[in-house]
């Protein structure tokens, strides 16, 4: 590759604390702008307006303890956030409110993130970590994938509460995992220098498909883009790595942050050209990248799509 890796499209500053989690919300109609939720180590949740690139609202509900999971439900009006004060809060953000309407106490004191599955309109299923869980993720409907501190990934059947399969794929704790329910395969990162891709066969067995050896140890987060084309990892070595999802081909190393990258997240914007990648880091910055989404000839495109009259 002759081309040098790109620079971030822009960088969001002002959290004044380490950024632990990111969540895009782009579902709104045209007058609505895409927003990004970020949770940081000082317990604040920032709601970023990606059009003005500024903070719209700051939510404070975790008593100064770091927030490590946020997710919007029901449009942008409801938000779930999980903090290390062992609380999962439900926020009401509609019409400019910002109040905690409900909260759940979790037993877990680790860094495991919760996971959410939309069962039907208005119904969600949330998996939240118990005492020893590490990283849960949903597969298809009744299944739950969870990564554990002993380096294993376990597939649970929720209806029966049974372990379907267990795969010990890492020597170190699993830091993060993501699953592609179309191709029935997932990826997990741990604190060692290996990225593992495993697959789920018809018999609901997990099998290691491929491992990728990294130069520097520690993957804090993995994310597969919604179109299942690329995979991004957040590295402890300050770098974001981009892989092709199909063959785990390394595509790019995005080098911007000056400290550990804690999280990566892809936006699900309706226009592919505006899909972004965000990464939050220990250096208090959130970098926004526009990569592999074919943006070229912007001027001419925009002019030609309008009919002259």
């Amino acid at each position, binding site marked *: 590759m002759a081309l040098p890796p790109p620079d971030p499209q822009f960088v969001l500053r002002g959290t004044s604390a380490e950024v632990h989690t990111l969540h895009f919300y782009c579902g709104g109609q045209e007058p609505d702008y895409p927003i990004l939720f970020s949770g940081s180590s000082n317990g604040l949740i920032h709601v970023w307006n990606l059009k003005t690139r500024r903070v719209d609202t700051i939510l404070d509900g975790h008593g100064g303890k770091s927030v490590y999971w946020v997710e919007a439900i029901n449009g942008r009006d409801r938000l779930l956030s999980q903090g290390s004060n062992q609380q999962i809060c439900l926020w009401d953000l509609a019409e400019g409110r910002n109040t905690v309407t409900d909260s759940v106490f979790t037993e877990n004191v680790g860094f495991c993130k919760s996971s959410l599955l939309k069962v039907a309109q208005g119904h969600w299923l949330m998996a939240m970590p118990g005492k020893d869980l590490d990283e849960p993720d949903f597969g298809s409907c009744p299944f739950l994938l969870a990564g554990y501190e002993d380096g294993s990934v376990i597939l649970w059947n929720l209806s029966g509460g049974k372990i379907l399969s267990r795969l010990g794929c890492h020597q170190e704790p699993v830091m993060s995992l993501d699953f592609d329910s179309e191709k029935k395969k997932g990826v997990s990162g741990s604190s060692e220098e290996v990225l593992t891709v495993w697959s789920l066969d018809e018999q609901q067995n997990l099998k290691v498909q491929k491992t990728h050896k990294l130069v520097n140890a520690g993957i804090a987060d993995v994310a597969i883009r919604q179109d299942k084309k690329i995979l991004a990892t957040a590295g402890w070595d300050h770098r974001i790595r981009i892989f092709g999802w199909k063959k785990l081909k390394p595509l790019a190393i995005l080098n911007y942050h000056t400290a550990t990258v804690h999280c990566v997240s892809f936006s699900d914007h309706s226009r592919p050209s505006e899909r972004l990648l965000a990464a939050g880091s220990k250096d208090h*910055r959130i970098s926004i990248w526009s990569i592999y989404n074919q943006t070229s000839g912007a*001027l001419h495109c925009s002019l030609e799509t309008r009919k002259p009259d």
Partner: protein
Amino acid sequence: MAVFDTPQEAFRILRPVCVQLTKVQTTENVECLQAQLQTVSDSALQELQEYILFPLRFTLKTPGPKRERLVQSVVQCITSILSTTCVKKQDLLQELFSELCLCLSSPSGLQSPAPLSEELKLTVIQALQVLMHSAYGDIILTLYQPSTLPHLGFAVSLLLALAEQEKAKQIKLAALKCLQVLILQCDCQEHHRLLDTVETRQCGNLFASFLPGISTALSRVITGDIKQGHRVTVSAIRLFYQTVCLVMADEQLATITQDEEKPSVEQRVSELVVHRGPDWVKSTADKLSLLIHKIVEFTSLHPHWKVRMEFVELVHQFMLKCSQSLVESVGHLLKALVGLVNDESSEVQSKCHEILRSIAELRTVVENRALADILSENLLSLATALPRLMNSQDDQGKFSTLSLLLGSLKLLGPKVNIVLNSAAHLQRLSKALIQVLELDVADVKTVRERLWDSEDSLGEPSGSLQHGKGQKKYFRFFFDEQIFLLIQQICRVLGYYGNLYLLVDHFMGLYNESVVYRKQAAMVLNELITGAAGLGVDVLHKRETAVSTEDLKGTITSILEEYTDQANWYLTTSIDTEGTSDELTVKHSRVRAIPRGAHSSSLISSSSPSSDPSPTIRSMNSNIWQICIQLEGVGCFAYVLGKEFHLLLASVLYPVLEKAGDSSLLISQTATGTMVDICHACGYDSVQNLINANSDYLVNGISLNLRRVAHQPHASRVLEAMLRHSDASLLPLVEDVIRDVLSALDQFYDDRASSFLGVLSTLVAALVQWFIVGKGKEHPQEQNLEQQSSTSSQKQGEGSVIIPMVQEMEQFFLDYIKQSQIAEGNLPAMEEEEEEVQAPPAEPEMNDSGAEGETPLPAHAQIAKDVMERCIHLLSDKSLRVRLKVLDVLEFCVIVLHLHENHLLPMAHCVWPALVTRLINDDPLAVLRAFKVLCTLAEKCGDFLKRRFSKDILPKLAGSLVAQAPVSARAGPVYSHTLAFKLQLAVLQGLGLLCEKLDLGESDLNKVADACLIYLSAKQPVKLQEAARSVFLHLMCVDPDATWLFLNEICCPLPYEPPHPSLQPVKLGGMGRQRTEFTDNVLSLLGELQRQETATFQAGLQEAPEPQPPSLTEALG
């Protein structure tokens, strides 16, 4: 005179006179009749009208030659009768009409007027006019029957002949006026019967027969000799359009059908009658258009404004009434009208405007396809000819050509899209605009460098700056600012009516096509957008659909993307870019299209070969202008979008600020103007607010650009501009990025140091400005006060005047002991107090990474410390320039840090070796600067540096001073301009303070005194003597007694008697010496010393009578 009211009485009186006249036709009788008429009332006269007229008409009708005098009086008499009565019978009217006409005609040829006296002609014409006015009611219409056509024709031709051929102005005017009455268009005050439609049509039909004659004759009159006077021309023009409007009125022509029944008249007459069918209209219009063309040519340039005014009215009437029938002339007429919009007479101007507006409102153009075609054809031919005309015409001519273009555009209104939709036409129009707008880039002044001093004014909110006041541009083809304004309007009108996407797309294409077009295309684009938003555009009718803000925003966003694209934004604008933009420039020359031979020669000659590796002045000028125009564009867009521009700030503000820090004066000025525009648009009241409120965008841009080697200078420039324009509240925001800068500097010590040093020096200067000068204003003063008081308390007054007593001596010793105790025991306590006072108010944002220091440093101090660390390394840079700059930065750092001694001192320790090297063996310039730093450092660090100074530097300094002294003593006046002199001066000026601040020991002070003594010599340049004296003055402060002694060793003016016999007599080295070269200075110093001491002594006396004369201590000690 009695008035006879009843007809009977009147008849009685008038009968004899009438009879007499009938019998003998003489002038006297006619006059007699006229006299009698005065006595008759109007009503009676009306009754007797025919009776009285009879003899008069009889007189006219009698065959044979008549005396003109008689005819004239008869006609006058008739006129007077008719003016008070009215003609009620149509026979009488017709007869009178023809009789009067006959008076004018020559008996030989009927068609030509008789060679009569001018008075008579005038009288007859007036009589005719009166006759027409006296016709009662409908009677007048009987004159306008097909049957009377010959009579009418006769009268018309006579009058035309008079109007055309007569010499006398009055007759001409009267004839024209009469004709006007004849075509029923009299504009006099009297009440006229208004014709209904049918009647008008009849008249129209009738006059159609005369139209050729009338129009030809009148056009001859109009285009005749200018000497005939403007009134004749004016009324001829009026008559012309009235006639034409009567005959060619669209309204009438529309109602005329093919087979209208022929009026039943005899054969001969019916031949004269014209049927106004389409064919006739067509051929007449053709002929008329020739005449109109002639008239337009002549009158639109007529020197008298009233003529031009009437001509404008002519256009108005034609457009109003005959725009369809005369469609072929409309182009001409409009062209002339548009040309007159900029007439020198304001009346004509405003009338033109008014008429243009009314024409536009009539929507004749918009709805009339033919007219639109004509106009667009006009437009195109004009566009084609424009470049040629621009080359050949003078400014006046160019002005009228362009106003013509503008006028056509305005009239076309929305129809302009017909032209724009054709690719070829659009091409032609755009090329014309682009060629006209070609800039003159030969001016050397453009590349002028900005002076950094003038930069300070930028921070002020220059709210008075008006929008649209860009830099004055110099064009190749014109100089007049007015012309530029016209072109501006043309572009705006285009943007207003035209299809914005089409236009923007086209001009963007041109922008990208060639570097030759780029500037002009950008200029046009800027104006197009302004016009599209409907700002600053003067139009005749409103467009139906305005461009929506969303569309505008989209368009502007894409234009801005193009403007701020690397290839268009980073251009070589100066030779001295420190090699940083080399790689960029090379890239650009490939990106930019090289002009091919296809362009016109004028363009080629001005184009710079962009493949040329070394930029010429011309190409740099061109680049500078391009950037300026783009910057102005940004300002325009901000103005257009108003508050909406906020969203674009994220991408635009950084590039603009980058240019605000540009080294070219023109660019930085323009960029500042743009920022002011943005402030206005987005509602910020100052540039400072703008920067503060959007610093997150800027910081983002800076930190991203710092990552790219080639853009680092730009990024640091933006940071510089930010710092320059903002205040302390910015610091928390930029803190982050300053770290980036420092780490970037760490990466590129070797090649980029100088570009980063600029930003570092701005940074620390800003820190000093914000935190030391601003906040700590009180501290230094307090400090000084305390120091002064403390030093003054140590000082003792010299009281040689007062003879001390034993008691006093005892007291003195007691005090001496006490004071030395104070000096040892209490001073640290005092310092602590000082420290407390100096400690800055707790900063809200403490730096977390204050690991090195025991107490966390406030952010600004931490930054200064970090910068200082870098400086240590850079102090030994290869380049002298860098070293000098570093020394500057260092000085600022020291000032910022001086409140945090426990950080400053370790830093001073680290800096010391490098600084010493600069002081000892470096270029004199660097030594000079380094010495200044040393002074500042000494001032802030105090005696921390004492030992180092006396060990590392003092010997060298003293040595060099001593070594240099003989040179300066011998030197001539030129010496004061040399570097050596400046160095000497600086050292001498600083040394005193250094001694004081560092609290040097006795031996060091002696060294200093020894070295400086030579400079007290009268042989030295005056300035050096002064400086040397200042050293001694400082020494006096430190140790007055030692100094006193030292000086007295050189020269002692007074003998000192011991105050008590038990004391030994005083012997001083300088006693009884001859006057030497040092005497003057030493004496003045001693005098100063004494004055100081006395002052302190007296001040002390007022408080408590403690201090004693110090000279005694010396004498005793």
